[in-house]
């Protein structure tokens, strides 16, 4: 490849941001000082340079955080440093919503207007901001700040929410929820990076109303142990499971996880033991473990709560997994909209490393494993496992065609075990309990074992993450959350998120298990339970879901790229009561579109993009009173 970089190179600030990640440039070719003794006599680039491709996103993050946007000269400098063709780097930078390739003020409020926040008045917040700051995306506050609409920020239990990014020498990002237009504007007016409120927990009890209750297993340490202290984690039972795993050996660990009949909690419910066994016996080397913390399904926030309040559990679980499958390197990919979770996990990894719980010789048992923390940049699709690999590798988050599956050809083309955060934190429960997998499998139901986290949000008195054993009914979960407030009644409940299914009040009797939801034509998905009472704007909710998929489709395959756009147009016609032909014609067309997306799309995004919308429109009583 003939690297062709045109135009001026980056400003000193942009270069400093890049160099902070990559170190100083070592040659004139890479944009450093030209050394006539070396330059022109030594080949530059090659495999060594190209093997750094996976650093593209971290470097783009650095520039975005320092300057507030990524200029062409900055991108050119990045391309020089990493030997990436500028067109490709541009393609990557324009894929992710948290990167901007055109000038943007340093301070940005990303205001969530997604389904849960809409129920909590996000449109009013946006309307107020339009009047006080200006139209979304346009510079206000003396050119120093702007606001943008954002898809779900995963703060649904405290809706409406906003995330703030403040570029500068000491860049800062943090979330605030609940927040109104006044709160947003006040934060926008703060000088970039100075005196702004740092990351805050909010109140743990607002996120996890069950804090401190006895009998909790997944949430046992939340609000009890100090999430910033390894010592506190160990005092509350941490790292016993790893010690147990080292006693058992890799095969027994996988056997216990298999006996537990643990299935993935990210939405696909694949048996974890089978996945691990496949990676353990796969031929390729090296092997990788990846923790999928790119939780972006609208209405989902359980992984955020785990990462923020029990980060060491994720680190320990990944270590166990690596031991079981024979990996020495792990990646934890956390979504870009979770600044506090990212900080907590980074701290946990650093403390674990310092204590010899990550590194070359873990617990003196000769186990070598380390974790690299990677940050997403605003792309729902990167929660799809193969898109996540592409993103870690420094590419556009476009899902791969399967087969081959990740257990054979995964990250960097190597066998990879990729698991969701909640799935992973079940593993210590399995190992640390007397009776191991068999005892774990005795909880829950026959088809759905163990405890499960649900993300309860919307029109419910006490929204939050709730832990129940599989088998609790939807009605029981709602009762835990205090039911619908104000004496109003349930009109519809969204199960599984934007990619899930709407059910009506009749489903309150349904046990929340994989088998029962499947039998009812519903899904648990990522554990979203979003309640809509009789006052909810259902038509608007459906349009927001359609808009979400139109925005988040990667654009790779035709059914999803065009189908999501056509679906959104169709809902707009229904909303304005100007159907092409009759309303029945439109509903038939919607089913045609949905079926093609479901059957012919490459990945789960397209395959489920019509699921919630079709399920609601199939039952008029869910949509209108």
């Amino acid at each position, binding site marked *: *490849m*003939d690297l*062709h970089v*045109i135009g001026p190179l980056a400003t000193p600030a942009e270069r400093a941001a890049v160099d902070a990640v990559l170190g100083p440039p070592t040659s004139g070719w890479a944009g450093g000082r030209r050394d006539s003794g070396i330059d022109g006599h030594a080949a530059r680039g090659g495999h060594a340079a190209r093997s750094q491709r996976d650093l593209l996103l971290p470097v783009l993050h650095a520039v975005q955080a320092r300057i507030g946007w990524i200029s062409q000269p900055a*991108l050119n400098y990045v391309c020089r440093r990493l030997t990436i*063709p*500028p*067109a*490709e780097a*541009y*393609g990557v930078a*324009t*894929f*992710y*919503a948290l990167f*901007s390739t*055109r000038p943007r003020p340093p301070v940005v409020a990303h205001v969530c207007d997604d389904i849960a926040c809409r129920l909590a008045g996000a449109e009013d917040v946006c309307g107020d901001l339009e009047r006080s700051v200006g139209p979304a*995306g346009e510079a206000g506050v003396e050119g120093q700040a702007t606001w*943008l609409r*954002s898809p779900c920020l995963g703060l649904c239990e405290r809706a409406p929410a906003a995330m703030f990014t403040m570029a500068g020498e000491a860049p800062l990002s943090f979330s605030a929820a609940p927040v109104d237009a006044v709160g947003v504007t006040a934060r926008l007016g703060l000088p970039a990076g100075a005196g702004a409120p740092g990351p805050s927990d909010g109140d743990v009890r607002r996120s996890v109303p069950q804090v401190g209750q006895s009998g909790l297993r997944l949430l046992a340490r939340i609000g009890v142990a100090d999430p910033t202290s390894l010592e506190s984690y160990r005092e509350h039972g941490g790292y016993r499971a790893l010690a147990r795993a080292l006693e058992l050996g890799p095969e027994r660990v996988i056997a216990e996880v298999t006996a537990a009949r643990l299935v993935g909690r990210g939405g696909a419910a694949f048996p974890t033991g089978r996945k691990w066994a496949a990676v353990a016996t796969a031929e390729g080397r090296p092997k990788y473990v990846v923790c999928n913390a790119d939780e972006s399904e609208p209405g989902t926030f359980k992984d955020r709560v785990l990462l923020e309040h029990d980060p060491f559990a994720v680190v320990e679980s990944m270590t166990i997994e690596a031991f079981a499958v024979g990996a020495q390197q792990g990646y934890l990919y956390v979504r870009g909209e979770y600044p506090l979770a990212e900080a907590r996990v980074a701290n946990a990894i650093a403390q674990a490393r310092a204590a010899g719980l990550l590194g070359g010789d873990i617990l003196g048992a000769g186990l070598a494993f380390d974790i690299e923390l990677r940050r997403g940049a*605003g*792309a729902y699709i990167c929660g799809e496992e193969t898109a996540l690999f592409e993103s870690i590798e420094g590419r*556009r988050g476009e899902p791969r*065609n399967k087969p081959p599956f990740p257990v054979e050809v995964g990250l960097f083309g190597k066998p990879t075990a990729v698991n969701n955060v909640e799935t992973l934190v079940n593993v210590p429960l399995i190992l640390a309990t007397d009776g191991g997998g068999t005892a774990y499998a005795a909880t829950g139901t026959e088809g759905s074992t163990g405890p499960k986290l649900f993300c309860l949000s919307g029109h419910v008195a006490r929204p939050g993450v709730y832990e129940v054993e599989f088998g609790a009914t939807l009605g029981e979960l709602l009762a835990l959350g205090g039911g619908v407030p104000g004496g109003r009644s349930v009109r519809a409940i969204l199960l599984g998120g934007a990619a899930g299914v709407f059910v009506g009040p009749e489903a309150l009797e349904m046990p929340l298990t994989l088998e029962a939801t499947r039998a009812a034509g519903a899904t648990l998905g990522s554990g979203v339970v979003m309640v809509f009472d009789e006052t909810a704007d259902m038509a608007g909710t459906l*349009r927001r879901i359609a*808009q979400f998929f*139109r*925005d*988040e*489709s*990667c*654009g790779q*395959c*035709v*059914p999803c*790229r*065009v*189908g*999501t*756009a*056509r679906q*959104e*147009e*169709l*809902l*707009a*016609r*229904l909303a304005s009561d*100007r159907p*092409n032909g009759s309303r029945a014609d439109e509903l038939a*067309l919607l089913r*045609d579109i949905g*079926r*093609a997306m*479901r*059957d*012919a*799309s*490459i990945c789960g995004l397209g*395959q489920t993009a019509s699921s919630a919308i079709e399920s609601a429109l199939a039952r008029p009583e869910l949509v209108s009173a």
Partner: protein
Amino acid sequence: MTDGLSQDRDPAPDVRVPAADTAPAAQPTSEIVLKPAARPSRIPRPPAEPVRAPVEVTIDGVALVVPQGSTILDACRAEGIDTPTLCYLENLTPVNVCRVCVVEVTGARVLVPACSRRVEPGMEIQTDSERVRHSRRMVLEFLGSSVDLSTAPAARGYIERYAAEPGRYGPPAEPAAPGKRDDREPGHHHAPSGSTAENVFQPVKVDNNLYVRDYSKCILCYKCVEACGEDAQNTFAIAIAGRGFDARVSTEQDVVLPESACVYCGNCIGVCPTGALMFSSEFEMRAAGTWDESVQTVTDTICPYCGVGCTLSLHVQDNEIVKVTSPLDSSITEGHLCVKGRFGFEFVQSRGEPQPDA
């Protein structure tokens, strides 16, 4: 058995190169004899391909035996089943993004792309089930309603074959203003009214003398990106930028081609299935209404420029070369050329009086 080719060859002659006139006077003028190494008696051949085990599959109820490693598309083609493809080309890595070749495999939850899915023992494949026809029809409707397929006869043929109705999404939206589609940011779009069907229409990009880019006709098949990058040219002047419906083929920052890394090999034109990328000669003739493929002849010849010996297919209309391609099955080019072979034909039809040397 003796290789016919080696029999025909003459023994290599000695190459005699007269010494240059500028040789130092002190040395006597003489002939320098460069003798190449003796030829092997037989031209080396690539090692024989491993025998591929046969795999039994069923396609549309007919039991077949195909070599292991074949794709479903290979098997369909061997069986004479005409499978529509848009993003597939023999000389490129399948990206399976257009989804028009999807087929139904018994036991699979979703349809699978025939172009890239490899056969497995016992696979039961249906290429014309109602489910397959539905997805193919919808994909074609989606493309037909969002892309200008006026120079894509294959796609238009598929639309007819599957009775796709691109019109049922409403009248097309107004074309985007110049550069506006390239300005769109991921994760943000204006809410549609639904009264018109969104599309990729936009002005043609004419920024050099050799070819034009009419992205109103782009179905985003990724072929040009592959040909520019890993699959042929290794130049990477273009990539997919943006996301979702706003994804587009773009140079860095949407700069014009002369400012990009483009080397004008034209391999992107060679693989484009819809005429979005087009020789300027063809584009201008179409605009003038003089383009007429029915009177064109195609003559294969060897590129006159260098010693590689690429096969050129000269497309000639009214005794003028109007474009140059190369056969996909050429063992030398696999359909790809360089700027000289692709575009360096103007001199042939320079019919003015020869200019005397200055």
